[in-house]
């Protein structure tokens, strides 16, 4: 019995780090974690969150975010919007307790603003790609003309 217990502890010592390692690597290399960090930085800056407020706000926000993400994207758009609105209403009181009503209202605006910044960045990348492609085509075309 003692041998079994010892061998179990030994194997647990080997297996647990194996499970834990990929998770850590994933966190470090996952680009979505980088966006998450940018999001936290942006919201904290715009809402002027103090350390104490941040400690209370982010766990509630994570719960809120998980519920919003769980809303299926393939359902009717109106229904989806209504579900998200219901989630916002559900968390409203908790956010107000931490941020106050003005900053809670501001939070939704700032949240939308962050998404807008991402969309703008995406549009810029696409434009750069398109311009790059056009330039490349132009060069190729001019090359053939010259020849």
């Amino acid at each position, binding site marked *: 019995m003692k*041998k*079994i217990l010892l*061998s*179990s502890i030994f*194997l*647990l010592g080997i*297996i*647990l780090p194996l*499970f*834990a390692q990929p*998770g850590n690597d994933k*966190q*470090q290399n996952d*680009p*979505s*974690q*980088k*966006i*998450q*960090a*940018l*999001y*936290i*930085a*942006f919201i*904290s*800056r715009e809402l002027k969150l103090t350390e104490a407020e941040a400690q209370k706000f*982010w*766990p509630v*926000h*994570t*719960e809120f975010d*998980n519920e*919003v*993400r769980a*809303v299926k*994207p393939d359902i009717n758009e109106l229904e*989806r919007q209504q579900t*998200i609105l219901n989630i916002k209403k559900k968390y409203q009181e908790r956010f107000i307790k931490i941020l106050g009503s003005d900053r809670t209202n501001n939070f939704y605006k700032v949240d939308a603003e962050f*998404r*807008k*910044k*991402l*969309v*703008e*960045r*995406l*549009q810029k*990348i*696409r*434009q750069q*790609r*398109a311009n790059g492609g056009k330039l490349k085509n132009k060069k190729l075309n001019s090359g053939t003309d010259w020849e």
Partner: protein
Amino acid sequence: MTDRKDILNELNTISPVVAGIPFVNVFVVPQGYFNRLAESIFINTTEAENIVYPVFEKVPQGYFENLSGNIMDKIKALETCAKDEIHTLSPVLANIGNANIFTVPNSYFEHLAAELTQKCSVVTETEMISATVVSIGNKNQFTVPEGYFNKVTNNIISALPAATKVVKMQGHFRILRYAAAAVIVGLLGLLVFFNLNKNQTSVVDNSVIANAKKILKNNSFDAELATLGADVIEKYLSNNGEDVQAALVANSASENAENLPDAVDYFLDDKTLDEFLNNHNLNRN
């Protein structure tokens, strides 16, 4: 006042009879009506049904004083009748009279046991039941040989068959033990792994918080944003329920509100929208 007149007029149209009743309380009865009501109802009822009630005469004087005596006399007179009746039914019962028949002679119960043993011997009764028990007599049958209990353990052990052969566990049983341990550990590991994952979903990761603090400290939000790739942004927006294509069109439209085609252009040329989307790199194709 006008209201009252209106009501009266309305009532007149509905029921002229009711409207014609003067303002008098119609629910009035003559004085003392209810005091005589029961009596008058009773008289009317008896007259109507021709009921004749018996007229009770007055009880003779001293009737109740002598009542119990009269009843007892009647019972006594009946008792003689009862005796005669019992006599005709059962002369034996009648002969018993009032004597107590459940009496025993003096000190009857003191001598009863002795008398019974005299009459019936135990030995003779036992003989009738079992001759073997009688043959045992008064001899003590529960005796064991001297030192019996001292030797009994050894006797039992010596009587037992030879000891069972002990078979040692082979090597493969040991391997099985380790395999079982590995399975248990594996299950424990999976349990811990899933719990850790569960916690990660409900709490913001510390490394993310640290990165966010770093961005705030260095004021490097725009610089960090500029390093993000298109795929990553698209994936993030999609995961957050955003229709990326629609968001891009909406953003482009708001940015290029002045350059949007006229409503007429859409009628004149089918490709107006496609051209606009292509010019702003928004077309999917």
